[in-house]
């Protein structure tokens, strides 16, 4: 059965791919159930999600100029009405859900092949089940990443987006619905490998973490500022390959500092294990500060 989109919804504002109505959620086998609104693996979305009419009246008012020209304005939080606000609403819902469930949600982004899945695999080996972890992983097709991560014992949900180049808040919400309601303290959202489009889609995460592999160019942060800026941390991955690849880590650090001055930089090789302790240390600190925040 193919569902026709009944309305326009969040589209990727960066590459123009508009059809994200046919993503699939693959829950951990034997766990969870398809949430309300999903059957036959397809997502339905209700008209209430479109949402932009709800606040349309708020703040719009008219002015008449001396020459009789009539203009209307709205002064919102940022001086206007958001053009793409449906995703933002869903992201805020997710944020509230994560807070209520005491989950720290991290959005992991990078270009394809930077090592997100391998880093997560190593992380789950060390962290789970001492800290209850869960993973939502997005790809265009296949469940390969979920299969690679499941031996870690944590619940893993694969989202296949079809042709869509990023995860959006609605996909994450549908996926998180299939996770166990309790015992998940740390939720990793492994985004579709892409340095452009995911930057525009808030998923409701607590922090965005960007991976930059030593097999990429040192100046990538300067080329893709939106995804790097505001990141809580940048992980320079595959550091064991830095030397053979001629990757200058100091140069990469400088580029990261220019675009994301507040980001912590961690050098990791998932293959050799170098830097994994520093990475786990960051996760522990984020969990601790999250728990502290939850008490207030």
């Amino acid at each position, binding site marked *: 059965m193919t569902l026709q989109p009944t309305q326009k919804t969040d589209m990727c504002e960066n590459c123009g791919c508009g059809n994200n109505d046919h993503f699939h959620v693959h829950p951990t086998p034997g766990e969870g159930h398809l949430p309300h609104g999903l059957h036959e693996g397809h997502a339905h979305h209700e008209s209430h999600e479109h949402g932009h*009419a709800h606040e349309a009246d708020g703040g719009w008012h008219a002015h008449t100029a001396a020459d009789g020209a009539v203009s209307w304005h709205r002064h919102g939080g940022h001086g206007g009405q958001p053009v793409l606000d449906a995703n933002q609403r869903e992201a805020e819902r997710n944020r509230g859900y994560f807070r209520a469930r005491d989950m720290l949600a991290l959005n992991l982004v990078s270009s394809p092949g930077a090592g997100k899945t391998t880093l997560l695999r190593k992380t789950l080996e060390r962290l789970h089940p001492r800290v209850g972890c869960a993973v939502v992983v997005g790809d265009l097709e296949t469940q390969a990443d979920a299969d690679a991560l499941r031996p870690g014992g944590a619940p893993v949900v694969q989202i296949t987006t079809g042709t869509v180049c990023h995860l959006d808040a609605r996909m994450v919400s549908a996926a998180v619905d299939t996770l166990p309601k309790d015992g998940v303290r740390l939720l990793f959202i492994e985004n579709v490998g892409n340095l452009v489009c995911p930057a525009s889609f808030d998923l409701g995460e607590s922090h965005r973490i960007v991976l930059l592999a030593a097999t990429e160019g040192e100046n990538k942060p300067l080329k893709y500022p939106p995804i790097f*800026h505001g990141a809580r941390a940048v992980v320079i991955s595959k550091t064991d390959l830095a030397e053979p690849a001629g990757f200058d880590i100091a140069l990469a650090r400088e580029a990261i500092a220019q675009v994301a001055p507040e980001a912590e930089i961690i050098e990791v090789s998932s293959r050799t294990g170098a830097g994994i302790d520093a990475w786990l240390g960051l996760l522990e600190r984020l969990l601790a500060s999250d728990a502290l925040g939850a008490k207030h």
Partner: protein
Amino acid sequence: MHEVAISEALLDQLVTLAEQHGWTRLSRVWVRMGMLSGVVPEALEFSFSAMATGTVAEGAELVMETVPGRFGCGTCGEFDLERFEFACPQCDGPLQLLKAGRELMISGVELMDDSPTNPEN
């Protein structure tokens, strides 16, 4: 050409707003965009004018305002720029992006003279 998709959302919003407020024709639409919104103004203008045909915004001028980002230079201090620069325009030293927005907002519209809407209503 992702701006086609953005124009679609923008026109969607304008049509809804027009229905709510009784606007019949728009002569201008103001849009504010953060530097990190990922929008190319020229492409948005082009797709908007093409796609506005047959809507309340047909022929309307799209006025785009970029919200500047805050940059910092170790030597020259902090200042706002409307474009990404990673070398200080004054001393050519390394420049840091300190703060910039992702917002994309409709901030206002101007009605055509023949629009019957009374702003007092």
